[in-house]
Every structure is written in C-alpha cells, then in structure tokens.
C-alpha cells in the first residue's frame, strides 16, 4: 500500500513549524550577518563583522550578562525557597486553605508592567511610602538610584511577581506525591523535619528541577521590570542582557547587530541551562 499521502497530513504542521520557528530563526541568522540599521535598511552581507564586534569590542554586553546571571540565580533561588515554603504550608489541611491558595497566586495574575509602575511608585525615594516608613528611623535608602540597591529592588519585584508561579508548580507536585512514603516515615517515627528532608524534598526533586529551569529561562529574559524601574541605571548598574539587546535593537535601531547579540545570547543560554539542568539532576536526584 502506498502511504505517500501521509506527507500531505504532515504538511499543515510543518508549515506552522516553518512559519513560527524556523523562518524567524533563519531570518535572525541572516539579519545578524547584515549591517541593517536606521541608515542602511536592508540585508547586505558583512560576514561575521557583528560577531567580531561583539566578542572584541563590546564589554557592556558581557557586563550585562554577568549581572543577569547574578540576578537570575538569586531571584530564582528566592522564588524557589519562598514558593516551596508557601506550597508546603497550604498543602497541609489548614484553615482558609483555598483562600490562601488563591491569595498567593494573585501577583502572577497581575500585569507585570502595571505592577512594576506601582512598585516604582512604592519605592520612589522622595515620594514613595517605603521611604516614608524608613524616614521614621532617619534613613532613606536609595532603592532605585543606588548601584547596589537598584539590583536588589529589581530582584524584590521579580520575586514578588513570579514566586506564585513557582508556588503553583510545587503545589501541584506536592499534591501528586504518593501517601505511602509518608506513612512509612511516620511508622518509623520520623518527625516533620526528617520527613521533609528525607521524603518530601527527594520526591519533589524532579518537579523542582523542572520548575527551576522554567523560571531560570524566564528570569534570564528579565526586561520589563528593568525598563520600568531603572532603565538599566544608575549608570549601567542594573542593565541586563535582554535590556541591552532591546536598546541596541529598538532604541538605536541597530537591527543587524542586535540580531547577532540575540543569537549569541540564545546559544549561551542553551548551553548554560543544559549544564545547570545536568548539575541539578546530579545534585538533587542522584545524591
């Protein structure tokens, strides 16, 4: 029997794949080999010039990448810790369990840019309520305009916004855990801490790894929070890779160069997240 017509059925899916994945990536690769900017619109061919510029003459990108790595690792660690604690809390039978489950999800359901604008008002150094409170103790921290604190502020807002996502995944994981290991641990006389360390945490490891990787991917794209809160400042102290790419692409209109930045960034992220995932598996599951 001739099954060649089966390819016809694959065609719609293939075309969709081509349209939404392969073509944009292919176009970005081609764009990265051109000098397209506001003055030279068009796909001329300049070889690897943009990549040479990136690797030899653009320390700002690499500084932004280091900053991003620091901020995303801290952010995701805090989200995981707080998210796990909250999920663990409402996993048990407690009063107003449903209320708390919904309450903890609210930040994630808000619009990030709008909430960041609100946070910016909250942290406003001379007009915001946070410093109104701190001024009672004679201090007015510079939440948005100090080199160190501006990063902390971005991390606070990101943790507030996205911890619910971690909470949701981890709660789903906890609810799906089998009861038998916990019963066995109880029979063996294990207390709550031992149960958590030797039963809950190991059983949650696969879900934890998935949640951490998903959040790391998202956190590495941090852009709107930085854009609204600090514009990457003061100086370049809170500038992240994606914000820098945004500046080069959509502020300075250097399309060709920003395409090279994007592709390089994509490759670095694929490699580093693969390594991180393997390390987490080794650390959390095998050990």
């Amino acid at each position, binding site marked *: 029997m001739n099954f060649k017509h089966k390819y016809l059925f694959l065609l719609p899916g293939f075309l969709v794949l081509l349209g939404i994945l392969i073509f944009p990536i292919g176009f970005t690769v081609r764009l990265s080999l051109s000098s397209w900017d506001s003055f030279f619109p068009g796909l001329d061919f300049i070889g690897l010039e943009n990549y040479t510029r990136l690797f030899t003459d653009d320390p700002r990108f690499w500084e932004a990448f280091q900053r991003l790595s620091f901020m995303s690792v801290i952010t995701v660690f805090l989200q995981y810790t707080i998210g796990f604690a909250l999920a663990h809390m409402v996993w048990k039978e407690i009063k107003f369990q449903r209320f708390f489950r919904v309450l903890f999800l609210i930040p994630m359901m808000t619009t990030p840019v709008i909430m960041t604008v609100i946070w910016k008002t909250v942290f406003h150094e*001379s007009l915001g309520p946070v410093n109104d409170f701190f001024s009672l103790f004679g201090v007015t921290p510079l939440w948005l305009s100090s080199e160190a604190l501006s990063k902390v502020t971005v991390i606070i807002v990101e943790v507030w916004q996205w911890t619910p996502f971690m909470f949701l995944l981890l709660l789903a994981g906890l609810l799906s855990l089998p009861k038998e290991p916990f019963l066995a641990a109880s029979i063996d006389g294990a207390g709550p801490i031992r149960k958590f360390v030797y039963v809950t945490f190991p059983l949650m490891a696969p879900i934890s790894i998935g949640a951490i990787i998903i959040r790391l991917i998202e956190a590495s794209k941090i852009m709107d929070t930085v854009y609204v809160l600090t514009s990457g400042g003061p100086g370049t102290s809170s500038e992240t890779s994606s914000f820098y790419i945004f500046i080069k692409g959509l502020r300075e209109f250097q399309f060709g160069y920003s395409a090279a930045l994007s592709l390089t960034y994509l490759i670095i992220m694929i490699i580093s997240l693969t390594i991180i995932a393997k390390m987490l598996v080794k650390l959390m599951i095998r050990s």
Partner: protein
Amino acid sequence: MKKMIKISTLTVTASLLAVAAQADKWSDQFPHIKNTGDIAGECSYESMSKKDYSGQKLTINTHAVPVIGEPTALHAEQFSKLTGAEVNVIHTPAGDLYSKAMVPFQAGQAPYDIVFGFSNFIRDWKQYLQPVPAKYVNMRQMQDVTQSHIDVNSWDGEMIQFPIDGDRHYLKYRKDVIDNPEYQAKYKAETGNELRVPQTWKEYGEMATFFNGWDWDNDGELEYGSAEVMKKDDLMFAAFFSRSVAYAKNPRVPGGYFFDLESMEPLINGPGFVEALTDWVEATKYVPPGGINFGLGDEINSFGGGQTLFSFSWDDAFVAAMQDDSPIKNKVGAAPLPGSDRVWNRSSGAWENEFNQAPYIVWGWTAAVAKASKNQDVAFDYLCFFANDANHQADIAIGRFGVNPFKKSDFVPELYVERQGWDPEIAKQYAETLMEMEEGSTNRVFPLRVPGVFQFNSAIATGTSKALAGQLSPQEALDEVAAEWKKIVKRIGADTVREAYAIGVALEDNL
C-alpha cells in the same frame, strides 16, 4: 524686540476682537476653544467645515495620552466631525515612536498616514516623508511660526515636518524664594553672595546647595535644590546638552558644537563638556532623594509640585507650575539657561574668561505625513487644523497636552494674563525669555540631526549616567562617549554624517 511684541499684541488683540463675534458658533459645538472661539484662517473650524472628506480614512500614530496623544485624539475627533473623515488614532509610548514608524517605512509599508515624533528624527525619517506643500508653507498661519521652529522642522530649506509644538530648555525658578528679601539677606550673610536669578551654572549650584534639604516654604515638607532629568535613556542627554552649551558653544568658533565639521572628530570629551558634566555630578548632591532616577515626568511633578527651587528643561514643568491647581501658581519665574564665566575655545585650546550663554533649541514634538500615504491632502489638512490658531491657543494653556509656544503671537504676555490668570510680571518674563531664545540670540545650539542620531544620543546617556552614578569620572565617561561616537561615525561613514551635520552647523553659525 519690544516693538515686535507691541505689534504682536495689537495683532492678537485685534484678532481676538474680530473673532469674538463668531466665537459662539464653533465654541458652542467645540468647548475646547471656548476662550477664543474660532479664529479665522486657512485651517480654522469654519474653513474645515467646508471640506467633505466623507469615506476617507486617516490613521495616525501618536504619543500616549496625555502628552501630545490627548490633543491628537481630541483634534482628530473634531476634524472628523467637521469634515466627515474617519480618523483612527494609535497611541504609542515615546520610546517606541521612532521604531514603530521606522519599521514599516523601511519595509515599504504605509500603515500610518501621519506620524508624530520628535523633530530630531528628521534626518532618518525624511526620505519616507512627504514635504509640506507650498500652500501650507506660505499660508498666514505658518508665517506666524518663529524662524527657529521653521528651521527645526526643515531640512536644507525644505519643510518636512509640520510645526505643531515649540520647545526649548530654559530655567524655571521659585520666584517667591529668589525675590524674598529675608532669604536674600540670609543668603548674603551666609555665603557673601547675592541671591538672584542665577547667571551661571556655578551660581545655580551654589544656590541649589544652599536651599537643599530644608523647609524653605514652610509647608511642613523638606524642599530641595533642583529637579533635573537624570534618568538614563529618558531624555537625559538633552539635559546634559543644556548644561554644556554655555561652556562649550563659543560664538567665536564656528564649525561645529558636537563635532569638528572638517575632521568629524567628536568634541564631546573637550574641556567645556567635561566642566559641564563635573557640575552635573555635583548636582546629584542637591536633587531630591532619588533625583538621579528622575525622568521628565518626575521632574515636572517635582518642580511643579513645589519640591525644588530650580528646574530646567522643556516648558511642561513651568506650565504645570502655573496651572490653577498648582500649589505654586504665580510663584515661579522663567529665565534663560544659566551661562558660564568662561567658555572653551577649541581653536586656541584655551579657556576664554568671559561670560557666555547659549540657548539650546531642543527638539520637540512634531508630525509629518508619510510619503506612501494615499490620503496626503486629508493628512495635511488635519495637521493644519491641529495647529490652527484657536486650537493652538487652547492647547498651550493645558500643561498635560505638551503643546508649547512656537508662534510669534504666542509671546504676548497679555495672552497668559487674560486667559490663564498669570501674574503680569511672570507672564512678561516668560514671554520675553522665550522670545529672546527664539529670535534674539545668535549663539544658539540646535539638536544633533544626523543619521543614526539615536546611537549618538544613547552613547551620551550611557556615558553621562555612568558619571552621575559614580562609575566613571566625568573625563573618563566622556572619553568613553567620544570613543563610541568615533565608532558610530566610522560605521555610518564620516562623509555621510558630515553632510547631515553641516545643515545644523549652518544654523548655529547663522549662515
């Protein structure tokens, strides 16, 4: 100039009387112009009502509400009622106005008939824009536009953008403090200097420092020295140029302010600019807490809300301070940007120890018709209607609209006294300050209008913000900017940049 103001006053008064009789007809229908009624002209309400654009559609890309976005939408609605045209207004954040128009321009598409943007986009946009037709350039309404704003909207003598707004940076100060005899005596006693409208940036800094961090208006809140646009990538480069013109724009040295026109070597790390940046770094000590992160909106709210003694940038902070709901209405003054007691001469490589001042005719809002638009007649009529005398007079009275004076008839103090309740002395000072900057000075600096202007401005924002944050010294920061500018010039081509820059230099050198 006084003679000119008198003539303008008579003209405006006469036109006000002339329109009074027919004001009711249109102002009843369009309350926005209730103060003036319709004012006769080529694009008045009366003239537009005679056009029939039924079945024609305009799409406009403009700024977000309220600044410029609100008057765009309001005048679109009025235009639609008068002419029958369907007008679709799309609002875009300021930072995306350039790219949102540029992407379809480059792709050969025409999603917008009219694009709003900043006047310094002109070099990059001009090839995609339809020059303003002669009938609009020569009409009476356009004859009233100041030469500076004709120049800002033109490229090599051809008007590309339609003047709808006027902008310049000038000094705003708390008149109730600077003119207060008690504070004048206190300042004299403690510093040995006169408390007066600051003539130089050094005086500005000394006064701002003196009035920083205490409750000098007895409202129970702390006040500060100055509110400035210091937030990176939020128009801060314009604030830096305002601070640097006095030190770096030498009227005796033609041939470029940003670059040496002959060699296209950046001048941005010269001693004049470094001195200005050093002053600006000092300013971080007398801005309100977090002032280093102030964008334009913060600056307007801070000065307009009575938080600081000084401010300098666009008109908006002054207009906001003089609105009826402002706590400091009629307590503010306007003056030219401070000068300096020395100016750098790059030809001789030495400072010249004499007073210098230079107005910065900063870029502002403008609008233009896309070359690929199929409704160019309707589009130009819309822009002409937007800027007609009645709409313009109403728009400049509303601070949030972002429409500021750019017509000679705007610089008549009586307008502000009668229609907006300004103190006559403040109105006179305001009108004279602006008019002097527009028409009086021969040492003006125009915004950089070259290919890739955003790359140059972005480099300035990055470098100066590093200095403000203490990451680099002023000299190191501007050396970094100069190195980046050299790379941009090399990428785009020195001749290409020079060709465009020469047009701005000709204006600055009064050629």
